[in-house]
């Protein structure tokens, strides 16, 4: 790896010298974690700001990053070890989530990744900490990541967590990595806990999602959207039929998820679940044309055409007053801080960042408070 490291370093030195004022990207696609670490070690030595690319679908989260080097996970594209009898899988970051889900569906298993895949990769979804709608039933994504392998900002490959479904052995590094937006290094490989898919599934349209949720024992999801409210059920046929009928719904077989909220600017209300109703109202008042609200979770995903700074500020203040947040996901500059007030633990967050990325090259500033 030393040769790779010195060659890379030379390249990076040239890159730095020759493209000082040019908005040029240098793209590398390592095929192993060791290679990734060597690349990051070299980038750290010459202090080249670096970003990571998976499917490229979640670009738009967080503060803008001015990076000269792009490390893609395209070369880390293997399902390393699926153990259907243990309900676990070890998979590399560049594998698209729908590829993984399709593979493990052959034994009727699921990694409970977001239902709307649109090209997202395992690494991207983990780094962004995205949970699907079925989190209502199976918990958020961070509860399913047993182990991670990261090429850190200081150029080492580290493994965190344990390769089993239950552990109190050392710190929860997988939880730290989940939602860390590539600020600690590159997540190259994860081990996931899997679930069996329910014996049967059904979707039922309901008139009131919050009542339907309250009256149903553990539905897969309870969504209220701009197109209607739906209860998603899993279990034996007789169960889902009786659960649907109990809330006045006619069950249709299968899970009919809503179309994604595709908008140049998306607002994500993340509030305690009991505030979902006012969050929906706020989203509408901010001009949301399409939206999906997750009952029992407290998340509203809403698309807007533009942001009016004044009403947005009021909505954010409200969301934060509930103990939540109003996060902006935008492909361009939306004119507001994407995260809002930084967490009170910001000092510890900064120290964690510099512990894993001492030269500050990994997605610098993308996280809340510019971490």
């Amino acid at each position, binding site marked *: 790896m030393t040769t790779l490291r010195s060659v890379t370093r030379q390249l990076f030195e040239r890159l730095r010298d020759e493209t000082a004022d040019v908005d040029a990207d240098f793209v590398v696609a390592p095929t192993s974690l060791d290679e990734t670490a060597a690349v990051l070690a070299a980038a750290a030595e010459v202090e080249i700001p670096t970003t990571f690319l998976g499917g490229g679908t979640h670009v738009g989260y967080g503060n803008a990053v001015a990076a000269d080097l792009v490390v893609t996970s395209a070369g880390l594209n293997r399902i390393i070890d699926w153990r259907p009898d243990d309900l*676990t899988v070890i998979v590399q970051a560049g594998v698209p989530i729908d590829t993984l889900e399709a593979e493990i569906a052959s034994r009727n298993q699921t990694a409970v990744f977001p239902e709307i895949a649109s090209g997202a990769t395992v690494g991207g979804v983990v780094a962004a900490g995205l949970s699907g709608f079925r989190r209502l039933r199976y918990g958020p994504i961070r*509860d399913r990541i047993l182990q991670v392998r990261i090429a850190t900002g200081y150029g*080492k490959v580290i493994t965190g967590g344990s390769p089993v479904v239950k552990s109190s052995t050392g*710190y929860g590094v997988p939880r730290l990595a989940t939602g860390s937006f590539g600020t600690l290094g590159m997540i190259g490989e994860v081990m996931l806990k899997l679930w069996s898919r329910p*014996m049967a599934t059904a979707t039922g349209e309901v008139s009131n999602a919050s009542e339907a949720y309250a009256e149903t024992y553990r539905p897969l999801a309870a969504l209220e959207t701009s197109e209607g409210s739906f209860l998603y059920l899993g279990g034996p046929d*007789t169960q889902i039929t009786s659960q649907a009928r109990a809330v006045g719904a006619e069950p249709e077989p299968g899970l009919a998820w809503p179309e994604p909220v595709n908008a140049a600017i998306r607002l994500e209300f993340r509030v*305690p679940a009991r505030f979902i109703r006012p969050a929906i109202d706020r989203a509408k008042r901010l001009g949301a044309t399409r939206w999906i609200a997750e009952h029992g*979770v407290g998340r509203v995903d809403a698309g807007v055409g533009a942001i009016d700074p004044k009403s947005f500020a009021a909505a954010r203040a409200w969301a934060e007053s509930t103990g939540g947040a109003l996060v902006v996901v935008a492909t361009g500059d939306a004119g507001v801080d994407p995260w809002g007030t930084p967490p009170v633990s910001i000092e510890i967050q900064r120290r*964690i960042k510099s*512990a894993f990325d001492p030269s500050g090259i990994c997605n610098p500033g993308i996280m809340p408070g510019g971490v």
Partner: protein
Amino acid sequence: MTESPDTLPSLRGRSLAGHMDVVAQLAELLGPDRVRAHPLDLLIYAKDSGVSSGEAAVVALPESTGEVAEVMRIAAAAGMPMVARGAGTGLAGGAIGVPGSVLIVLTRMNEIFEIDEVGATAWVGPGVINLELSNVLENRGLHFAPDPASQQSATVGGNVGTNAGGPHCLAEGSTIAHVLGMEVVTADGEVVTLGGAAPDPPGYDLRGLVVGSEGTLAIATRILVRLTRNPPDTVTMLIAFTGITDATRTVSEIISSGLVPAALEMLDGPMIEAVENFVHAGLPVEAGAVLLAEVVGHPDCTAAEASLIREISARNDATEIRTASNEAERVLLWKGRKAAFGAIAQSAPDYYLNDTVVPRTRFVDVVDETYAIADRYGLRLLNIFHAGDGNFHPLVSYDASEPGMTEKVIEASHEMAQAAIAAGGTLSGEHGIGVEKRDLMSQVFSPDDLDAQARIREAFDPLGLLNPGKVLPEGSRRFDRPTT
């Protein structure tokens, strides 16, 4: 493992006079009743429920977050290490004092502040007893899912410290999946809130780091727990087998069928006998192993899942399948499982409890190997398992007054841990590392992995004052050490 105090970090040049000054300051803050420095008082706290012991310089019993913060500021100013302690039921030596430390006992912070039935959350003090929380929730259709066998005495703060598990953590996950947020005090006495009731708080998931960190990153002073809805139906079954292998194979087949029951526990023959002698729960004493399986949910679902479990059990030569037909019978079936450790305490003067986890596919082999190891050492082994998640507790019962016995037991236990690790498993499923498994950490983590964890610790506690000498072996922080 007996940990002689001198392997714990020494008090670098701190004088007794210095301690006396701290004791006086603490007494002024908390009143003389809530500060203990008499050797006899210190002795009471010298152990947790593991085999190691250690001694603090002084014990403080704060009653509020403000008091915890103030105690920690006083300790930090004097450069004294701080050790958080709940009920002291921990099995890894996590809650024992280190030389010259302030032991911060949180049992008096046992208030339940707020229960949100709609959002299914509650804010509780770290000193709240696990079972008391469930009792308070009983009539609200909710419960706190983590149910360690020690739930009658263990605190929620201690559960957070060790990321405690329990029979019902198979489907629901360990404590970490049931803690949404926390108010913590960091080593320098700062009060910080981590996480919260809203999903995906922006920023790093520091809550996820503090849970399971055994008091080495911060001390939790208020905990926001997630509550779980009581299921509409529960089916509990006790399934007997002639031999251990039939039972372990049944477990593997249940999991590989994709079914994750609410609980799937196992007791081996010697354990069944010990338990039955102790509680008379009507366990089949002639059995070589029993499984306790529970499925919960909609009645249609529990019926289907229970019948699948019966089918798999029958295929693996189960000799008896009992199904509880009412709550009283269900409680009786669980009674044996819950009384297991009490039973052991009755039957042998000492016991050493292992806590390894293996992939469920390797369960059968590793269990066999543990028996072989015990045989080779001529030790009495009883086994109790959270079988569904591959977490097993080979328990060696012995008499520590026999010369050389403790060392022999520890050696055999290390071999059992190694067998689990060789099969792709790990050191602890739920009890934590503390001091007892600290020096085995390098068998599951590389030097670089340990260094990364030490970096996290340094980020929280730059001076290394929180529970030093626990969890990470000495020298874990290896390179690029900032020079301060």
